[in-house]
């Protein structure tokens, strides 16, 4: 993977986020590694329970109790005012400390899935954007209002000046999602995390929002971490993709490469099992045997081995393969190399 990519702005190294429960430890994220480069859209894709959302929450130190980051680093290149860069390990910060509160919303902003639940129904959307601006920047209220209206205009909110005083429940789904994007952009963050931002809205509206995100990324050179279960959205929007399964990264690489040459059996199965508008109708779809295991009954070795058609007995069920460079992408699979991860102490 040595093509031209911008500088690394966020580097997640061997991240482990575990949830101790009465019945055992749920290893929601169990050794995830990836880099987000300047100005790229990195798609994180996986089925339910793969840990994609918990990874994102870890990056913002928003993991709810009893979850905890138990190991790994989240190295963030913090660059306010474009002069000096400092490297912050978010994994080491206190979940409620001053520093993380500055970074959250200021440097790294979240576009959540459910815009209805993200705005307070008691305050106008404008006042909520103003609040965010004034929290992170030293500006007057007038100036903050000007910024808020500018952001609302930027995300294509029709008659932004009037909508400044609207409440979230007065807006339609698509407009509400635009308002939440304006809120996320309010402090010019260097990283945007979009957690299934279009799952709750209809396809014709979804297309508008995806085009908006593409445009923002082009114009501002923002780095976007895009979480979704929809392979179509990844194919259309992302530059690079991380495929996750049960808290582990199975494969990662350029979208154009991973989609045309999936190397991990899970990626292959995932791509083969979606009916596409361009595929033959009414044929039997190739499927993956079985279902996603219960979080407390994770298989030993490679988490995918019980469902994998190519699993090697005695190897895949014993050790976890490392995520290593294979041609242009990175793959964690013994079919491609034979390096295993050291077992946990």
């Amino acid at each position, binding site marked *: 993977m040595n093509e031209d990519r911008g500088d690394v702005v966020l580097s997640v190294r061997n991240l482990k986020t575990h949830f101790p429960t009465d019945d055992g430890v749920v290893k929601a994220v169990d050794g995830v590694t990836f880099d987000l480069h300047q100005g790229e859209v990195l798609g994180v894709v996986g089925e339910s329970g793969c840990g994609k959302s918990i990874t994102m929450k870890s990056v913002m130190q928003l993991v709810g109790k009893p979850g905890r980051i138990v190991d790994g680093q989240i190295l963030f290149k913090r660059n306010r005012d474009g002069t000096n860069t400092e490297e912050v390990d978010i994994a080491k910060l206190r979940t409620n400390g001053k520093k993380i509160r500055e970074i959250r919303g200021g440097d790294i902003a979240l576009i959540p899935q459910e815009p209805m639940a993200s705005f307070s129904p008691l305050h106008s959307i404008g006042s909520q954007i103003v609040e965010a601006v004034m929290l992170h920047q030293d500006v007057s209220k007038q100036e903050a209002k000007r910024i808020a209206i500018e952001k609302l205009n930027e995300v294509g909110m029709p008659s932004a000046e009037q909508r400044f005083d609207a409440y979230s429940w007065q807006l339609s789904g698509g407009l509400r999602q635009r308002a939440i994007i304006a809120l996320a952009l309010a402090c010019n963050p260097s990283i945007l995390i979009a957690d299934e931002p279009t799952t709750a809205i209809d*396809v014709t509206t979804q297309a508008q929002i995806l085009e908006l995100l593409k445009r923002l990324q082009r114009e501002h050179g923002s780095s976007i971490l895009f979480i979704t279960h929809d392979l*179509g959205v990844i194919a259309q929007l992302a530059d690079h993709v991380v495929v996750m399964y049960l808290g582990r990264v199975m494969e990662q690489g350029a979208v154009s490469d991973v989609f045309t040459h999936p190397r991990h059996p899970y990626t292959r199965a*995932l791509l083969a099992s979606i009916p596409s*508008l361009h595929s033959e109708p009414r044929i039997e779809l190739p*499927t993956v045997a079985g279902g996603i295991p219960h979080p407390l009954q994770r298989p030993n070795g490679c988490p995918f081995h019980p469902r994998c058609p190519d699993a090697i007995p005695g190897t895949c069920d014993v050790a976890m393969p490392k995520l290593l460079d294979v041609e242009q992408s990175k793959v964690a699979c013994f*079919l491609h190399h034979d390096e295993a991860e050291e077992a946990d102490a």
Partner: protein
Amino acid sequence: MPEEVLGPNILEVENLKKYFPIKGGFFGSTVGEVRAVDDVSLYVREGEILSLVGESGCGKTTTARCILRAVDPTSGSTRFRMKDGTMVDIAKLKETELKPVWREVQMIFQDPFGSLNPRKNLLEIIGEPLYVNGIRDRQTRMNRVAELLELVGLRPEYMHRYPHAFSGGQRQRVVIARALALEPRLIIADEAVSALDVSVQAQVLNLLLSLQRRLNLSFLFVAHDLSIVKHISHRVAVMYVGKIAEMAPTEELFRRPKHPYTAALMKAVPIPDPTLRNELKGLPGEVGNPANPPSGCYFHPRCAYATEICKTKTPELRTVGPDHSVACHHAEELNLDGIGELKSSPMTEALSQPDASTGNAPPS
């Protein structure tokens, strides 16, 4: 596919309407109505899968529920051909007369977690419709439940387990087994695979297709996902704000859509193929409000081809080709793009060729 022989109509829906009153004002008088289903006509042939597709709030679920009389329609008729060949109008039946119809029409719901009673085991869940319909002997019921579980790809031993022991995909199989218990001839599947993960969704789609072929079932498949609809159905009906916008055989609809809304829907679906990256074209504005629909054609405020007549006159659903009907004033003049011929892209080609990288002998 054309080689499959389809029988006569098993279901004929005509001018179906469901208006929900909006209560308000003093004394709770009716101040308006939500036209959830507004003059819908469609038909399903025996052994056919008809998909009803549309965005949220378009009335597809209400249509399905009206057909089954889960809600009473405001007006219209839904004629169903019983096993003995007689046509009954489900919309006009008294409640006491519905039971024999419900034996032949079954429904599958979206959420496999909400539609199974957690305090009953599979034998009770799947056996209940059998018991209600007069099979009182426990051993007979157990045999039939075992048969049904095998039919949907579950092990018969599972019949003594409770729903919590099963994953989403397995639960949906249980729901399907229960629906099949009384040997129905028409199944109404409301977003039956939407709640499932992709890898499991394919399993359930395969199951539905194989059941349809083996048992010659007819399906009314309600869905919002166009790729799934294209994959599974013989014909498709597209709904927009309570009305059918277009209805046509699947291939024809996707290749030559006649309604601007159908074409727009197809343009908006992100195709999971980075080699076919194009601009996703959304539609301006939002889905119309069924409580206060736009004048004339409900789609005109979002339509790029709208003219004066579209603002004033509501277009009727009319036939424009074999099995192809559309509700648009300009259907004949427009030359809309479908998704094109079934062509292979660089991605599908790369995937269909045996890849050198996986041909390697695995390290021993």
